[in-house]
């Protein structure tokens, strides 16, 4: 009897213990990852960019229409407006780029943001001992000519198409003494930087919000920056809360413990959001924004079977990618023709179209000497089977599902693939990095808007033992013309010529077909119905860079 009374009392007490409902002055965002550092230039993580986007603005950023725009500057430097000029630097062509910082900007402790901060960031950024993982673009600057507290001319060592894309600044008045104290002792600055030692220190950011509480691996709490000169932030508090398990993340969303899930690859997967939308169509606003993350299959062309371009083309014709994205992703992820997203200004549609055509695939295989055997799999005159290994990341349920669909589609075109999946660590850390795969390897990578494909397609970036396996050209793409075009793309400033160079690069990529393009991932955003002003971008300069526009209805 006593036990029953106690149990009844305990159950009755539970509602009393329940937390109070959060008001709309607060916005709680659920994320499945947590930043390892809060320094703007250390560790190039998506989740770090997401958190810092609320507090720290880059000088320039691509907007929702994928157009470059000023955030900390008052006028975007271009050749047309004269703020960017070609110049001669010791007999070599360089550039002079004038940065005009906005005069109304302040750090979150009230100190003005000036060219001192620009010069300081350059000094730290070009120092190899600073440990910057976002070294670009500071290492390209040879000198800075300070005109006044808001204007400076940056002298670049080479002509570069990225002359008007510039990263975040560091607060010289806070980080200066730390950097000075660290001297040139390798890694000391990284350990002592205030961004990591005391991230709630006022003055570290210049955006609409500032970090008021930080618990590593738990949550970041943001409150409005009193010195922000722009539109008044719409929330008194934004909480970014880590819930690593995505099933728990969904449950938290449904329980109201979190209001929204960040969509930029740091929250739920697209299939989870599609299921959530089907189950609760009216509870949230669902946004699927195609992104720059490119899902593809690398081919090992040293494999005798894949050395023949006709076989590679047959494989792509055999894949019904449209049906795949329609059935698995509700048609939300666009089919890819190359690594360049149609939303990218450098995209061209004038490349060979490999729409699903099984008959064409079989014809190409026949032409290449492969004919269907008794078991339906093709063999050649030496009786060798048309069979290759197909690897991807084990444990990524969605990717494994895609892999099985592709396996069936290839089999229907008499191509046998044997699945050989590995944990992500092994797959990326060994198999891809050291090019140990023998056939097909499916994974994704992200690029910036208009980013040069040097890392993935230039012959100098082929990972080898000699270069300690650095570089991401895992397909060992080695084409002198492509190398030349990449060099040109990086230094060509005429937009029309730039487009022509990019068009030719895409044509070579598709014609040679060392990669089977699959689709561009879509970022799945789940936001509350009452949230206004939320506009996902689909690229690395995320929606949070305009978070002051987020308001509750």
């Amino acid at each position, binding site marked *: 009897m006593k036990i029953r009374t106690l149990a009844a009392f305990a159950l009755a007490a539970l*509602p009393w213990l329940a*937390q109070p409902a959060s008001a709309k002055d607060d916005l709680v965002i659920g994320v499945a990852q947590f930043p390892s550092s809060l320094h703007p230039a250390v560790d190039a993580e998506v989740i770090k960019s997401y958190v810092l986007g609320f507090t720290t603005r880059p000088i320039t950023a691509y907007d929702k229409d994928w157009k470059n725009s000023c955030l900390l500057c008052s006028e975007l430097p271009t050749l047309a407006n004269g703020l960017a000029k070609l110049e001669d630097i010791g007999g070599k062509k360089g550039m002079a780029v004038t940065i005009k910082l906005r005069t109304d900007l302040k750090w979150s402790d009230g100190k003005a943001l000036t060219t001192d901060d620009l010069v300081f960031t350059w000094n730290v950024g070009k120092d190899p001992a600073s440990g910057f993982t976002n070294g670009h673009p500071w290492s390209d600057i040879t000198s800075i000519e300070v005109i006044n507290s808001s204007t400076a001319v940056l002298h670049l060592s080479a002509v570069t198409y990225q002359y008007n894309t510039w990263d975040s600044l560091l607060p010289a008045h806070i980080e200066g003494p730390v950097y000075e104290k660290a001297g040139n002792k390798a890694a000391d600055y990284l350990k002592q930087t205030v961004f990591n030692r005391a991230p709630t220190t006022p003055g570290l950011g210049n955006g609409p919000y500032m970090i008021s509480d930080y618990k590593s691996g738990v949550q970041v709490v943001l409150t409005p920056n009193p010195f922000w000169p722009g539109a008044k932030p719409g929330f008194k508090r934004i909480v970014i809360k880590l819930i690593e398990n995505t099933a728990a993340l969904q449950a938290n969303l449904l329980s109201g413990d979190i209001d929204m899930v960040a969509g930029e690859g740091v929250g739920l997967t697209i299939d989870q959001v599609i299921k959530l939308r089907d189950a609760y169509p009216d509870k949230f606003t669902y946004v699927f924004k195609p992104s720059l993350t490119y899902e593809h299959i690398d081919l090992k062309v040293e494999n005798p079977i894949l050395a023949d371009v006709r076989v590679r083309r047959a494989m792509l014709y055999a894949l019904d990618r449209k049906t795949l994205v329609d059935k698995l992703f509700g048609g939300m992820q666009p089919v890819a023709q190359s690594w360049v997203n149609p939303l990218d200004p450098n995209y061209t549609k004038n490349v060979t179209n490999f729409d699903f055509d099984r008959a064409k695939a079989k014809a190409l295989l026949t032409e290449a000497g492969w004919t269907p055997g008794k078991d339906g799999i093709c063999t050649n005159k030496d009786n060798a089977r048309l069979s290759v290994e197909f690897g991807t990341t084990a444990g990524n349920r969605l990717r494994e599902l895609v892999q099985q669909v592709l396996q069936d589609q290839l089999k229907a075109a008499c191509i046998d693939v044997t699945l050989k999946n590995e944990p992500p660590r092994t797959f990326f850390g060994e198999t891809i990095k050291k090019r140990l795969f023998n056939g097909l390897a499916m994974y994704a990578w992200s690029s910036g808007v208009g980013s040069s494909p040097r890392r993935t397609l230039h012959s100098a970036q082929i990972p080898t033992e000699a270069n300690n396996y650095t570089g991401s050209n895992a397909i060992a793409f080695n084409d002198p013309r492509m190398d030349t075009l990449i060099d040109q793309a990086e230094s060509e400033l005429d937009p029309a010529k730039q487009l022509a160079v990019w068009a030719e690069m895409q044509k070579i990529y598709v014609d040679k077909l060392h990669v089977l393009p699959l689709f561009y991932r879509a970022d799945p955003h789940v936001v509350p119905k009452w949230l206004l002003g939320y506009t996902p971008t689909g690229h690395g300069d995320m929606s949070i860079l305009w978070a002051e526009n987020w308001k509750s209805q």
Partner: protein
Amino acid sequence: MTSYVFRRLGQALLVMLVMSVVIYGLIGLMPGDPIDIMIASNPNATPEMVANLRALYGLDQPLLLRYWHWLSAALSGDLGYSRVHSAPVLEVLAPALLQSCKLMLSSFTFSVAVAFTLGIIAARRPGGLVDGLIGLIAFAGISVPVFWLALMMILIFAVNLHWLPASGISNVGDGSLRDHLVHLIMPVVTLGFATTGGFIRYVRASMIEVLRMDHIRTARAKGAGEGRVVLIHAFRNALIPVVTIMALSFGTLFNGALLTETMFAQPGMGKMIYDSILGNDFNLALTGLLFATGVTLLSNLAADLAYGWLDPRITLQ
């Protein structure tokens, strides 16, 4: 006794040293590189930048040399810097340890209390209806996956009833004792339930065996009440095998609460060790694993000492 304890502590230190070599070696042999993770989202990373970062973090040195540097620093009290948390290891370890202690001690107390109560009740009438029901609870505890149980708890008590918070350690801006306790209820019950099942079975089996012994019959013949027979004469003797199991579980609970911590977003030791291994955070992973090893060794020592207290016939030499 004192010399026994010191000898065991000496052995524990030796084990820790060997484990540090083994763990460091294993982590070092794992595929992947911290630098790969650091530049993963940087489309502008160059091979030169990668090489510079490798040198900066000392990753260009041979594994043995890196271990030696770590050991030398560790012996002087510097456990290194955590790359995943961008903070000294001790600063990361302390809050995780505190959180784990809260969760682990609460759930351990919960499961021991439930296991002793139900185990003793079941042992009094083996094969009866009550024993069957308790057996059902025990097997449910053993076989229900923690992941599923956690999710069901969240769905029932957070999503449907809105009685309890779904995750976290406290609400932003609150942080009162009540708030912390509320956030602990579901993780404690989930983790506790997972270990209770096994404990119940051990307590029940041990009690059944002891209740059949001659001294119990003698106690009953002398007119001792049933409560005294069970709790005083039988229970203490039944504890020896149970204590062994519980001591071993105590050590594994420390780093085995990974699923509970992940599901309820509780930043404890299990999750910290797991994240540090995934993130190639050598210093933190090594320290965390060594700590877990130490706890296991100490809990075994505590169990051995408890034998002597429970059964005066046992002497420790």
